[in-house]
């Protein structure tokens, strides 16, 4: 079993906390402590909420640097049809919700969770997210959770649903101690819903058109209210579909916030004719990164928005942005290693220290007095741990940070391999990477070859491995400050 893609403890423990570096240029601090303002950081939240999400990579941007999740694909059946979904299509290079390579029985799922927990001390969360709907066949989902909880009581359980069956199961969700639920809500207006959902299966009957969308909408709102009334954290996912609900998501945001949703996560529609979805086949396009961001920005309230979502497969394993699912396929689970709680305790201690050090480094990183006010985007190659610790050529995604005089803030991730390109016409992987870096001023990575560095330079993008293994935010701020200090010096 390879662990090349997981953060080795050594990579986040062997380096001293990043020191602010302004080599060659001098700059004075403006005395402002930089605040991340990133979604769900420790500073912006009530303690009770932070305690619930601090280890949850799907709820906390901070946690996603340190903790891993896994989805167990025990729920292949669904009770609604969405125009962006066609589960018959599966490609091993695909990373999309609703896609899995093998479905599992409850017992197989429990075995798989044990095997992953033994190998991956970062594992903190097990979710059931399909590939259909977690509550379409609710007894199987709850049975799976029972088995996992009995084996590994420390693991947090969560589920993801379209909400149709949700009101019927809120009592049991609460009774089982599932304290995170995600509902996908794409509309609060049935006229819009009818363009997204051709039918639902409800109360032993198939419903279509406006009637279907009306029922789904009412059930979603009812389920959301019932969950939040019980103190269960609810995240709402919305798929941004240009021309259908892009203007409407403001209304969705208001409706779900007023009912107590803790996070609202706007995700881009993934649409391709090859996927065989209704939207793919009818030419409905997904949003551009700028369109996505414009909608996310229009919803405001940083602490309530989430930008680090990876739209994982329903069988994903590992830190967000990586998928070790293939290492834990059924045929490899025959001899699961025993789970050793000591490894996890050690990891938790390391994380606590790292979080403190990273925060300190961020606060210490200095900003020059005179700086341009235009925000600059910096792309980071990271394997997790909040550090710049990945080789440029190995990065399958970049974390994009926006740097301004107020500090460095995570705004999104961009994948270099998100879509299955297929065929043999993939000779220039670098072109895909460069396309993913559009609008970025600099790439900070652990290492980069001379050729790609030159090619990026030709595109006006600075690539640097000067901050290898250091903390992300502190390095981005320092790079920005250095650049500006140099600019000021040059123009003086």
């Amino acid at each position, binding site marked *: 079993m390879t662990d090349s893609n997981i953060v080795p403890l050594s990579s986040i423990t062997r380096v001293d906390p990043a020191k602010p570096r302004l080599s060659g240029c001098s700059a004075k601090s403006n005395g402002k402590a930089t605040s991340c303002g990133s979604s769900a950081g420790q500073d912006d939240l009530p303690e009770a909420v932070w305690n619930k999400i601090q280890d949850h990579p799907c709820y906390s941007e901070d946690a996603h640097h340190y903790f891993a999740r896994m989805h167990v694909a025990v729920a292949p*059946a669904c*009770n609604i049809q969405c125009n962006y979904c066609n*589960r*018959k299509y599966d490609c091993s290079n695909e990373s999309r919700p609703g896609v899995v390579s093998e479905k599992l029985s409850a017992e197989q799922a429990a075995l798989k969770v044990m095997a992953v927990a033994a190998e991956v001390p970062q594992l903190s969360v097990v979710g059931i997210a399909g590939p259909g709907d977690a509550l379409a*066949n609710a007894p199987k989902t709850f049975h799976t959770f029972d088995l996992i909880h009995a084996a590994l009581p420390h693991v947090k359980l969560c589920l993801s649903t379209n909400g149709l069956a949700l009101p019927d199961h809120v009592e049991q969700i609460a009774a089982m101690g599932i304290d995170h639920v995600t509902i996908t809500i794409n509309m609060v207006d049935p006229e819009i819903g009818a363009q997204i959902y051709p039918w639902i299966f409800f109360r032993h*009957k198939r419903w279509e058109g406006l009637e279907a969308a009306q029922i789904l909408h009412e059930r979603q709102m009812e389920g959301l209210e019932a969950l939040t009334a019980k103190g269960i954290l609810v995240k709402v996912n919305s798929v941004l579909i240009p021309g259908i609900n892009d203007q409407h998501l403001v209304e969705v945001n208001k409706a779900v916030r007023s009912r107590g949703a803790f996070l609202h996560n706007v995700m881009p529609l993934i649409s391709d004719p090859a996927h065989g979805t209704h939207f793919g086949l009818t030419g409905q396009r997904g949003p551009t990164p700028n369109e996505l961001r414009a909608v996310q920005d229009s919803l405001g309230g940083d602490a309530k928005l989430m930008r680090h979502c990876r739209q994982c497969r329903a069988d994903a394993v590992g830190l967000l942005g990586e998928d070790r699912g293939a290492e834990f396929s059924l045929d490899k689970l025959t001899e699961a290693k025993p789970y050793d709680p000591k490894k996890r305790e050690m990891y938790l201690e390391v994380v606590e220290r790292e979080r403190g050090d990273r925060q300190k480094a961020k606060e210490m990183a200095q900003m020059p007095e005179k700086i341009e006010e235009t925000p600059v985007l910096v792309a980071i190659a990271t394997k997790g741990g909040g550090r710049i610790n990945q080789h440029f050529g190995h990065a399958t995604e970049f974390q994009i940070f926006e740097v301004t005089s107020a500090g460095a803030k995570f705004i999104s991730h961009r994948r270099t391999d998100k879509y299955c390109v297929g065929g043999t016409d993939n000779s220039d992987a670098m072109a895909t990477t460069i396309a993913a870096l559009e609008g970025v001023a600099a790439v900070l990575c652990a290492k980069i070859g001379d050729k790609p560095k030159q090619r990026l330079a030709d595109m006006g993008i600075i690539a640097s491995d000067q901050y290898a293994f250091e903390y992300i935010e502190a390095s981005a701020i320092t790079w920005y400050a250095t650049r500006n200090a140099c600019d000021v010096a040059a123009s003086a």
Partner: protein
Amino acid sequence: MAYKIVEKNCTGCGACEFECPNKAIKEKGAAFVIDPKKCTECAGFFDTPQCVAACPVPKTVVMAF
């Protein structure tokens, strides 16, 4: 009378299996099959056959003869 599942269309999601009031549907390989001896087309239980209404793939649960 009974229904059957067109094997090449079946995604194996099992939405039909747990809706069937007669427990007439079982997984076989990558697809599900309906036992025609047990299928009553949901007569006496529901107005519409549950497997037909629940199946996400068009023209997949069809009349057996």
